[in-house]
């Protein structure tokens, strides 16, 4: 299983717990240097049963302007 599949399975697990998908993943490449950070973020969130917040995401992703079409 590659990192992308690992992340997708984790996000599915997250969805089952919190009934929402918190992260914009659509253009995240398999070889992105951020994929490990995101995997770790989702893993920790599932483990601690704490929802991923905007602030947590900001620590990984940079912001885009409001109303941007991603």
């Amino acid at each position, binding site marked *: 299983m590659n990192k992308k599949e690992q992340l997708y399975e984790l996000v599915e697990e997250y969805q089952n717990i919190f009934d*929402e998908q918190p992260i914009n993943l659509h253009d995240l490449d398999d070889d992105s240097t951020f994929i490990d950070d995101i995997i770790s973020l989702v893993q920790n969130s599932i483990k601690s049963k704490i929802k991923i917040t905007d602030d947590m995401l900001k620590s990984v992703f940079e912001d885009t302007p409001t109303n941007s079409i991603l």
Partner: protein
Amino acid sequence: MATKQEILSKLAASHEQRISKVLFDLEEDIINSLQEATNGIPLTTDLAIQLRPNLKRLIEQNYLKEGSKIISEYDEVVKGYMDYIRTTPVPDRFKLLTQPDLKLINQLKQLSFSGFENVANRFLDTIANEVYQSAIVGKPFPEMVQNIRGAVNGVYRRSNEAAINRLVDIVEENRYSDDPISKKKFEDARKILHSKYASDIRGENMRKYASQIAHDSIMQFDGQFTKYKGEEAGITSFKYTGTNIITTREFCRTYLNEVRTEEEWRDIFTGNWKGKSGSDPFINRGGYRCRHSFVPYDPAWDAEDVQKEIKKEEIKIDRKRKKENIFGDVSNDEKDILPNVFGKDENKYTKAISLIPALKQLRYVSEGKSAYYFPWNNADQLNVKKVVNDGAKTTFAHEYGHRIDDQIGRLVNDNDKVINELSKNVKDKNIVNTFKKGIVYKNEAKNISILASEKILEDRKILVKALDERKKQANDWYFSTISKLSNNIDKRYKQCAKILDELIDKDFPLTKNEFLKIMGKSANSNILVDDIKTAYQIKLKLMPSSLHRYMHDYIGSVTRNKVGFGHSDSYYKKWETIFKDGKDVVKFGENLETFANYYAAHTGNFYEFGKSVSVEYVKLMNYYAPNLTREYEYYMDVISKL
């Protein structure tokens, strides 16, 4: 080629901006001149009278000189009109500019200049009177300076306080920007300036009238010239054209794209509405700073045979252009990327690109920042990763798909014939009205994907139906199947291969080779338990984690992440609702993302394991979301015939 309306909007904005700058220079020049004249001597009434010619000269050198330059650019409006009329079926003799036309153009320009002169004379009096009265009452010099600054630039006058000047600079730097952050800076700074001068805001300042004249003058010139040329060609009806923005008057909103005779328009314009500036439709339109304009338009042109003739002409032009470049007009930034991402062969997807204008701005985003498209306020800004690998190609195609969705929508939005054709399958006509009216940022979004809202819901219902049961069925099948597999690895491979052959039956969306390809395997590869698990999930229309991330995004955007995912729930929630069916809601973000993913797949830009897997994923899109995928296919067919 820019339309007449685009030329008008661009020039009107640029003229306002230039006049605004000139008024700052004028303010400084006047104050410097007064300081020089009163250096060491008291301001007397005689001196005040002597200063008047100086003030007049400064206004002429600054404001009227720029006004004259601005008016010389009205020829662009004439060109825009001529480009428009050449696309209509009026006789050829009316498609040329004649000597009397040039005479009229000069007269109209002179008339426009008199508007600038009126403002100049009015404020020359105001400023000269301020100087004279200051001399009579012995007003302190700094107070007179502040009053004159206010008379020229209102709250945007220069100040002794550096902080205030910084705010004025912020306003000027960001006033005409498309960037939302700049807009916010502009609004904040303006608000502070208004509160700073709240006690003495001058409603009557030169800046207010001069910038309004700069805007309205070009629009009036256009209205009068259009009316004259329309009459000359024997056209008695006119179409009210332009776009809707958040501040569009209700009157303009109501009559936008309406075609009426001159008499009917004159009758309509006898009514009253907020912001009305006069009753002549061709001069006043919706009122002060109205961005709408008329074009001569004969309803008979909508007749089918005439449309065919027009189309024939357009096709001729298109074919000529295609030979030169299948992508049409492109920016320098796009020139090399487009063939790299979309190939060199002409098809309906490249045709769509050839129909839209060249991209205004391409920017590269850093790692960790999402790619995005920003179209608001006509920004047309594409923010992408450098196209250095397959993943970046997919992202570029996805973002470019957003651009196609947006720009084609803008292109066809006032063409009822094309809209009727595109919306052939739309049952709820409110959706068509939403598309025509526009939504989101100042009603600017007129994406063609809006029309597919019902199809998104149709497919969503299928995909989420009995979802938990299907997930359980897949799990049960998986555990039951692996429990029956041999512990011997070779036997296990063979068993899995046999199970896969059974799963890939006539109802399976892919052939065995296609399935193996998307799994990164060849015909000789060993079949693993994960492979048969994936095949079984596909059979149940679930989304295995090994499928392409943009396929996940496509299905995630159809189902609002109930099946598949890519964009976050909060991303979808931030957009406006487009369509409701009971409890089921389609948000604009879902229209956007479904189309972008459709476009990326259908332009051959899904890659896995170093190969294009678009053919396979197009089949999967048709399998998972058949109604929506077919609908988009249909839109592209209609667009390819434009």
